[in-house]
């Protein structure tokens, strides 16, 4: 199966990647090749097979409802691109 340039653009937008127009063709080719590889799966009969999301058949462990964390804002924000008054800043969000 191959993927169209339109679909690549749509996927790139969903993934928030700004693919420059001149590189689009390369992605169309590479992604189509990968999809061709993957297409072998469609021939497999998987009737009644339960999808396997985890390698081990384990159940979720639950945590007691206890506050264990303290404030480390300064440390955590030391790696942030832009902060002010303890807030992370981003370009204006229009609602």
């Amino acid at each position: 199966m191959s993927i169209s340039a339109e679909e690549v653009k749509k996927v790139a937008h969903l993934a928030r990647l700004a693919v420059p127009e001149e590189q689009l063709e390369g992605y169309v080719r590479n992604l189509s090749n990968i999809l061709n590889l993957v297409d072998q799966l469609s021939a497999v009969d998987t009737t009644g097979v339960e999808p396997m999301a985890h390698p081990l058949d384990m159940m979720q462990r639950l945590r007691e409802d206890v506050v264990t964390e303290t404030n480390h804002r300064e440390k955590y924000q030391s790696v942030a691109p832009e902060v002010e008054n303890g807030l992370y800043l981003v370009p204006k969000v229009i609602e």
Partner: protein
Amino acid sequence: MSKADSIHTLSLKGIHDGVHSGAFSVMEVTDAYLDRIERFNPELNAYITVTRDSAKAQALEIDNRIRKGELSGPMAGVPYALKDLFCSEGVRTTCASNMLSNFISPYDAHVAAKLKAAGGVLLGKNNMDEFAMGSSNETSAFGVVRNPWDTNKVPGGSSGGGAATIAARLAPMTLGTDTGGSIRQPASFCNITGIKPTYGRVSRYGMIAFASSLDQCGPMAPSAEDCAITLNVIAGLDVRDSTSVDRTVPDYTATLNDSIEGLKIGLPKEFFADGLDAQVGVVIERAIKEFEAKGAIIKEVSLPNSHLAVPVYYVVAPAECSSNLSRFDGVRFGHRCEDPKDLRDLYERSRWEGFGDEVKRRIMIGTYALSAGYYDAYYLKAQQVRRLIKQDFESAFADVDVIMGPSCPTTAFGLGEKKDDPIAMYLEDLYTIPVSLAGLPGMTFPVGFAADGLPVGIQLVGNYFEEARMLNIAHQYQQWTEWHTQVPTKFA
């Protein structure tokens, strides 16, 4: 030969014994490795960051604590490296990506904290494929790593920097991660020993995720014994990782000397079919004969769905990665583009600039596979076939104790050779991926050299949580043979 010149030939146990008997200090060991890194790393590019100052500070402190009797464990005074996707507090943690080129981690990964607490000395962070996506270490934003056995060849990936580090003895041990073969394939290409434990055996907390249901951390070192010593320190329950298993950790060193007589070894016929380079096949078969000669029983088994593993993997891993890598958005950490004009520009440009080609390809494939209208045909289907692959292994393990076969279809390939052909690159992992999908433990250890003079590793797959048995088998082999002690002349 002076003391400093031979330190790098010591095993973890040798280092431990030396620093505890007073034959040499932790500082001397650390200096010896730092010197080797300074000398050889420029050529190999196996380290992204060398933590020289903090290593020396740690060495000083650990020397003191050993002297005072506060530290005595098997890792006390042992230098090590970490693949650069383990968060290490106060140390740059890049994932070999421009996205994180300035990221100083504010915390330690579980395994990093374990090694630190055990008295290890962190030498630095190993190069890798960007975000662990690759099989050649060529996708690193910090440059390619060269294979110490032939510097025109790749070291394999994604833990290529780690494999080259151990092969050239620029650290006595490092931790890698394996999602579809990222410990086993480079270990095989570089003539070292590496083990990917059962999924859930080692905590993933602080390991920057590629594909959460596949990623697993494991040691890479010259010998199985070194791996066993390391696994003793890092394995076990960590409640911060919901997928970490609550199950007793055996002493992996205790059974290293057990006999392998009567061991039933299964050879999957699919792993010896077309696609396997004949010069690799010869070496693997010779190793199997050696096991047989030592009393192992060889049986053929079948993994009929294993040819579907690569397609399954290239749906599941990208799907998970597309979501795991969404947090890199230029808001709280990581690369942010210059002067974003609005929010969309901030996201799209930061991510475009921060990620390399292979990462972007996988994010897009994963996004596509999960998107409306394709989920059932790709993601769900892949998860179903994944179960079939697991069931193949379950059937095989009904007849045999362990499975053996090649780790890779070829020896190390040339730098640039497969760079522009993602599919050819993906097929490098056809023997390691099925094991990852099933969550089984897999390891590689050196079994000789192919006609082209490059190393060949054999893959050993155990049943769930059978790491002790696997390390025992590899250790026994390493008692009869000396392949694992071979170091390229230049780095000897």
